């Protein structure tokens, strides 16, 4: 008997979280992410975990940060409007270095927008939504199985680097059903945050300036430490000293920068000899893959580069491929967000073409194929 199951992206995401050790979920109902909360409400009480439906998304992210400080592995799930509400506390998790996972199943925005239609309009918000320089990691599943794998990975990254991790899905990825063969949980490598051994001499934010990750104690274990969203020194207490502010900001970002080689992940198809490189993520990449295969069948040398991690972007691998390409095409369900990264990375070495779709519908492979074949811009 295999572990094959027919499941939805939102379901796979929840199972991946549980496999990683999720034991606290707080959320607020919002389409198209709600199935994640529903499944957590059902599963968590069975395993000694906790579920709470908070009064809003601000409260949801606050509650998971609180729970994470007691040592739990935590997650919340939302969509555009709720993700916007979470931004302030996302920054809090960043500066206080509290591991959390946020799933954002993107829908059409701005505002209430189109709740049941897919979009990819939150690329930049996921990186820069909260104010100030801050660390964040953004993972983008491209199919149902990856919802499981990348949510699992999100927990490991959050725990290892004490950083908020966003799983950036979209309505199609979240609601689509596919046959998935889940890995045997026993084979998965679960990462837990590093904890101090004794309260004696514990400094909650003591870390190497070069991107070090401090040891994380739990509330209620006798450490009696202080956590604040103010800039703080290694004792955890507020400090206005310019030297500390400078070093601390740099360490927070350096922490993720240093981890980039371990975090970066991508998928390619037919890129070895491609002239036309299509770059897409999430559900747009599914249509792109189909388009690239059709182009190949007609003898066109097209290839697909699909980042599974958008922030950090797999820069080096991408640059290598882009250097050989004659054209780069970026289909995305927004008016140009990921493409800004791509333009930056490609420079003037090849023309970068935007292929935007913002009518609330998924790309048809033919639309991308037509562009590959040199169709209308």
């Amino acid at each position, binding site marked *: 008997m295999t572990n094959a199951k027919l499941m939805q992206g939102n379901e796979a995401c929840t199972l991946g979280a549980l496999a990683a050790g999720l034991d606290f979920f707080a959320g607020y109902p919002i389409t198209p992410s709600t199935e994640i909360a529903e499944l957590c409400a059902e599963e968590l*009480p069975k395993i000694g*975990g906790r579920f709470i439906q908070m009064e809003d998304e601000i409260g949801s992210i606050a509650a998971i940060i*609180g729970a994470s400080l007691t040592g739990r592995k935590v997650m919340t799930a939302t969509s555009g409007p709720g993700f916007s509400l979470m931004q302030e506390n996302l920054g809090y998790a960043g500066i206080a270095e509290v591991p959390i996972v946020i799933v954002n199943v993107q829908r059409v925005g701005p505002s209430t927008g189109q709740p049941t239609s897919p979009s990819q309009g939150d690329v930049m918000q996921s990186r820069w939504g909260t104010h100030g320089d801050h660390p964040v990691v953004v993972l983008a599943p491209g199919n149902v199985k990856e919802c499981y794998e990348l949510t699992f990975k999100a927990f490991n990254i959050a725990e290892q680097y004490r950083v908020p991790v966003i799983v950036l899905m979209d309505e199609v990825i979240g609601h689509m059903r596919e046959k998935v063969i889940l890995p045997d949980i026993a084979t998965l490598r679960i990462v837990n945050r590093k904890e101090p051994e004794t309260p004696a001499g514990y400094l909650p934010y003591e870390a190497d300036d070069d991107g070090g990750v401090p040891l994380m104690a739990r509330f209620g274990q006798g*450490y009696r430490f202080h956590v604040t969203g103010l800039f703080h020194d290694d004792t955890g207490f507020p400090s206005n000293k310019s030297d500390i502010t400078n070093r601390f900001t740099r360490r927070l970002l350096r922490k993720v920068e240093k981890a980039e080689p371990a975090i970066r992940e991508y998928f390619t198809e037919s890129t070895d000899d491609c002239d036309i490189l299509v770059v897409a993520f999430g559900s747009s990449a599914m249509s792109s893959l189909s388009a690239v295969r059709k182009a190949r069948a007609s003898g066109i040398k097209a290839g697909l580069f699909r980042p599974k991690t958008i922030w950090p972007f797999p820069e080096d691998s991408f640059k290598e491929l882009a250097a050989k390409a004659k054209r780069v095409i970026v289909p995305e369900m927004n008016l140009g967000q990921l493409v800004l990264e791509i333009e930056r990375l490609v420079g003037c070495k090849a023309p970068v073409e935007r292929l935007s779709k913002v009518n609330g519908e998924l790309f048809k492979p033919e639309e991308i194929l037509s562009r590959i074949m040199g169709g209308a811009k």
Partner: protein
Amino acid sequence: MSDILKYFRQNRLPHIWCPGCGHGTATGALVRAIAKLKLDKNKVVVVSGIGCSSRAPGYLDFDTLHTTHGRALAFATGIKLSRPDLKVIVLTGDGDCTAIGGNHFIHAARRNIDITTIILNNNIYGMTSGQYSPMTPKGMLGTTAPYGNVERCFDLAKLAIAAGATYVGRATTYHATLLEDLIGKALINKGFSVVEAVDQCPTYMGRKNKLGTAVDMLNWLKDRAVNVKAAAVMAPEKLEGKFLVGELYNQPEPEFTAEYMAMAEQVRRKYDNFQGGVRECGQNSD
């Protein structure tokens, strides 16, 4: 004195509050109440939001969490649900609790989650230097109410009771021993407990409204406060412009985290006895 000193992070003192500020008195009342109950320092978490009041936890020797503006109760809800065995205390101000944090306040009360919330109510935004809050009495001055506050203010105790809090008390910093007593009872109540500590801000509230020194302001608080027992036999017109102090509500009800744990226990028993299939996901945590 040595009883209470051990609950302070003495190396973090002196505090940042202005001379004459009432927050030290209120924080002292909390610590005295904790000392009287001999709470285990390692099993208490104090959570705050943003504002003058919310700097208090930094001086207290517990696990302490200084969160974002208005959100202390939401962070505290996560802590308490995760670890129902911990004593969770929220220290918040009138703006933090009743304006930006109003939604979390009424929902924490509705759930009757076992969190003791102490509102240091100085009727003004002190940290940003004197704007009116939802607790500023009508007609009083603030930097954003230069012609007098035209808004009505909350009766926070009534709000808490209506929203479902199971213990509600109010005292002023003039009534410091009453305040300590009420906080003690609030800490004992297993449910959402609210103590409003009405205190003085001589720097902003006082200067702007020409209320005099800190001592004058304490007298101003005393003159307006009426004990709830005395008020019961007073004519309504005598209570105009006054507010009630004392224990205003004490009615135990099922507590949220206990209810959640009982539900989870039932679910687990049913699930563990289920013989028909394989557990699909997850692993045991606590």
